[in-house]
């Protein structure tokens, strides 16, 4: 590796024509990133024969000020400051085709408080750039000065727990199934049974909006009847994530206002509504004391493959800035993609005041969240009561565990399924707090709890052999090794 900080005259630098990005000021291994710089880490796969340093410089150029040719108008600006600078290129361990490129961006390149603006630069044009076979945004370091331009989650984990009066255990939820086709009246039945049985939340699925079989107002009215009935039956605060995702911002506001009028504690949006819509809904939720649930619908199209796209850890960071209270972040043991250490990294981004660099979890930078509230991670997709010890071990107590099929598919009915999950969870928390080795003794703890809870015994029997044991595609590149003494 060599630096290219060669001295040359301005006339040479700005002579019309084409010049290597490396020579245009987008590559400087001697550059010390400032505390206020935004830093992006890209995984680059150059086309055959393309120098990785030139490719990295091109990424820095195309994601900041450069175009394909020299332009004299650069000289009307403080162009040195505005050029992103690739300051480090490392080979990816075990992958000779790929490189990690660290690129620093001056803070003034970004509009305060706008994810749309940040992403338009960082993932704007550059992902289709021809000299690269593939490009992935792995991680970002967001300086405190920038973090402070965002409001962050309207509610956050602590205030959500205070509002719900639920402490010391994961929250329990279920997505209503079948996700499409139920009428409002039947849909509310599922909500009522699940909440009465012991869940804290039920949830609309990502694609339940306002379809011919159930219009949104009908769903909201029946759901809130169910929520209030279940609250009176149990004396607990209950909620159902009313999905307000719609075709226009005006429709989303209308639905959210109606949810508020009906007394819902929470509304829901899908990631596919876009960053600006998410930030708008976050502001609305803040004005209206509403918890905001985000379903990460669509993310796997760009997060799952390691060679190209955007890592979910970056999406999680953007969403903590944009300001959502809940975000689906993986289950480890369920039916959807999720390597344990990578998922741990996502949860830490949601929950910690400050993330220390942890390469083995895919966290490449120290990240200070500067008092921004915490996002509650949600584990959803193919989980059941028999996995409770593993879920608690991998995910901790600050999350929502969502058992959709694992509640509604219970042989004795939805309320029984809910009770099984709640009993399994409380038994596991009790055992953990008592200092037991709950991960190894998990099956025994569940079996003992099932002696006073027939629904749990039935759930354990029905789903005892269900596991989703497939190799993950999105895994960390670094593994911890013992240092020889």
């Amino acid at each position, binding site marked *: 590796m060599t630096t290219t900080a060669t001295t040359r005259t301005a006339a040479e630098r700005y002579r019309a024509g084409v010049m290597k990005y490396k020579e245009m000021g987008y590559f400087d291994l001697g550059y010390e990133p400032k505390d206020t710089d935004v830093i992006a880490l890209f995984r680059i796969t150059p086309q055959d024969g393309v120098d990785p340093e030139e490719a990295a410089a091109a990424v820095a150029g195309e994601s900041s000020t450069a175009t394909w040719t020299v332009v004299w108008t650069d000289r009307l600006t403080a162009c040195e400051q505005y050029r992103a600078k690739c300051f480090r290129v490392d080979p990816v361990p075990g992958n000779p085709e790929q490189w990690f490129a660290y690129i620093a961006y001056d803070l003034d390149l970004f509009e305060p408080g706008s994810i749309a603006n940040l992403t338009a630069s960082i993932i704007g044009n550059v992902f289709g750039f021809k000299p690269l076979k593939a490009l992935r945004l792995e991680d970002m370091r967001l300086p405190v000065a920038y973090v402070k331009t965002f409001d962050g989650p309207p509610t956050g984990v*602590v205030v959500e*727990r*205070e509002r719900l*009066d639920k*402490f*010391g*255990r994961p929250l329990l939820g279920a997505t209503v199934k079948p996700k499409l086709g139920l009428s409002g009246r039947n849909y509310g039945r599922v909500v009522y049974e699940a909440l009465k049985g*012991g869940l804290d939340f039920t949830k609309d699925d990502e694609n339940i909006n306002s379809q011919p079989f159930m219009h949104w107002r009908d769903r909201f*009215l029946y759901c*809130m*009847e169910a929520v*209030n*009935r279940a*609250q*009176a*039956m*149990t*004396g*607990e*605060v209950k909620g159902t994530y009313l999905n307000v995702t719609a075709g226009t911002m005006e429709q989303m506001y209308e639905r959210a206002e109606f949810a508020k*009028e*009906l*007394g819902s504690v929470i509304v829901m949006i899908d990631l596919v509504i876009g960053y600006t819509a998410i930030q708008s809904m976050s502001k609305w939720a803040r004005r209206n004391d509403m918890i905001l649930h985000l379903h990460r619908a669509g993310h796997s199209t760009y997060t799952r493959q390691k060679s190209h796209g955007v890592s979910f850890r970056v999406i999680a960071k953007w969403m903590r800035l944009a300001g959502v209270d809940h975000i689906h972040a993986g289950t480890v043991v369920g039916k959807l993609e999720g390597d344990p250490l990578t998922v741990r990294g996502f949860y830490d981004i949601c929950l910690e*005041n400050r993330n220390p660099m942890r390469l083995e979890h895919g966290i490449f930078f120290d990240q200070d969240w500067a*008092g921004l509230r*915490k996002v509650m991670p949600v584990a959803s997709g193919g989980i059941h009561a028999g996995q409770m010890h593993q879920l608690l071990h991998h995910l901790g107590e600050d999350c929502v565990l969502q058992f959709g099929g694992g509640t509604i598919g219970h042989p004795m009915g939805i309320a029984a399924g809910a*009770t099984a999950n*709640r*009993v399994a969870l*409380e*038994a596991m*928390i*009790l055992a953990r*707090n*008592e*200092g037991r080795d709950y991960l190894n003794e998990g099956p025994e703890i569940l079996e003992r*709890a099932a002696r*006073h*809870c027939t629904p749990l015994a039935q759930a354990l029997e029905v789903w005892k052999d269900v596991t989703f044991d497939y190799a993950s595609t999105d895994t960390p590149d670094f593994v911890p090794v013992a240092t020889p003494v």
Partner: protein
Amino acid sequence: MRLTQGTFSFLPDLTDEQIRKQVAYCIAKGWAVNLEFTDDPHPRNTYWEMWGLPMFDLKDPAPVMYELEQCRKVYANGYIRLSAFDASPGWESLRLSFIVHRPAEEPGFALERQETAGRGIRYTTHAYATDRPVGERYS
């Protein structure tokens, strides 16, 4: 009905030995332990009456168990909850909260509906326990 607020309401009522272990867990974490009681367990009744001040800097669960015993003697017919408070930066709230005593009979709640425009309904959850005269409730 059985009020299911708190971390362990779906388990059989905890024994004193089980409560003691949870208190020991809280103490090991450096949390303050608090006892509160009420006869109105409405889900939005946030401020139960405090049984003395929160107990900070505990070394042992014994003082908590002693206070719980005293509280039970006075409010045998109410709810008592034990909570643990964590003053760490970024949290500064409860970490655990569970019911450690219930009345022999739990009257539960009525759900009142006020029909409004369209098909809208305003809901009110009403704790039957609060129907008793104030003089009886707070004696």
